[in-house]
């Protein structure tokens, strides 16, 4: 779980990148993950070219990406929180 101050700092990154579109350069499908993401496996993870700047992101649940796909950053639940935690949101990729 992200600490509250860290979550707050992350919001500027989210604001800067939300809705940005790019093209998938490389993609893998992760089938064994850390425990908090187990419920999402298998999920795709990609290196994306956003107008000349490369960045890495998880794909949204169920999105199957391929090299060359046009993608967009959207807000999705970061991981499954436990019953007493706040729900965190982060940037993930969907196909355009």
């Amino acid at each position, binding site marked *: 779980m992200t600490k509250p101050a860290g979550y707050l700092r*992350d919001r500027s*990154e989210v604001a800067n990148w939300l809705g940005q579109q790019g093209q998938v*350069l*490389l*993609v*893998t*499908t*992760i*089938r*064994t*993950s*850390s*425990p*908090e*993401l*187990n419920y999402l496996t298998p*999920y795709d*993870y990609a*290196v994306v070219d956003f107008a000349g700047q*490369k*960045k*890495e*992101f*998880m794909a949204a649940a169920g999105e199957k990406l391929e*090299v060359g796909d046009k993608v967009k950053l959207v807000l999705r639940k*970061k991981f499954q929180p436990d019953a007493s935690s706040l729900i965190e949101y*982060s940037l993930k990729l969907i196909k355009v």
Partner: protein
Amino acid sequence: MKITVLGQAITSFGELWQKSLPDLLMEAMAGAIENANLEINDIDAIFVANMSAGMAENQVHLGALASQLLGGNKPAMRVEGACASGSLAMLAGEYSLLAGQYKTVLVVGVEKMTDIDSALATKYLSGAAFYGQEYGSTFPGLYGLLAGAHMQKYGTTRDQLSAVAVKNHLHAFDNPNAQYHKKFSLDQISQSQLVADPLRLLDCSPITDGAAAVVLTTKVAKGLAKISGFGHGQDSLDLAGRKSLTSLEATKLAADHAYAMADLSAKQIQVAEVHDCFTIAEILAYEDLGFAKVGEGGKSVAADQMTYGGQVVVNPSGGLKAGGHPVGATGVKQIAYLAKILAQGQFETALAHNVGGSGATSVVHILTNKND
């Protein structure tokens, strides 16, 4: 000033339920001192390599732990650089010798990884990535991206990846301390369970407990392996920040420095322990270290150029893949293993290549035993 590897010890690598982190640490330290025919009082300082004990064992302050276990109030410090922790501790020890602060030091690497389940181990290991920029990644995932890039650009094949694993599992039969003594076929590797496409379970090094130690000295010692060169390279911590995703720039930088310091070229290296945390990592290493032309690493291993009778013997211990990968111990184990076989006289020039994370940190050592 020459640094000699005066003694070495490697514990068994594997799932060692009966041995704790302090047990492994002490076994390696005592073994190396005994192998060097020294007493504890002959050691001036200790450099300890470890990545995950703070997370997995709630044990930090490993320098103090090693010092207490060895006795004699030896100055000790812990060095961490993910999977390159071992070779960074080697550098710390070497710098202390070359600065003249000490004459004889002990470098020990240790990792206790199997007391936690594989999902938690995956989480802790992913801590070596750039958490804020690579959330959701795993180590197999990052190397899966590198493998995909190499396959796309150079046509590296599934069978060429598998050839690395087949070779290293065969080599491991020569290493009694290896985690696995099991032969695999190309098809068995290629049909094992997918972990992070295109990498499969048998492309991956295992979760391992183990430790290794070496005694380094600037005192004159003949007939033993010498540290003739070393280099340390860095690159962007996250993959997306790198210029190339089909090579590791940190390895090229480290190799350039090491070859220049040793006044040797890649063609003169006879044997090497390289960082094969995943099969693609070994193929990248061939190219970045100059053992193969760019884009032809896969072809080289498939053509048996990286084993006995080929251009250079790579990972005679079985490497990380079959020998095991106790993260903090690996860089020290590579030096210990090469020092042992150099002292036996079979080879005269050797190279050790240790990588941290997905390639942000790389350290290359060159060892020689030419009786000079």
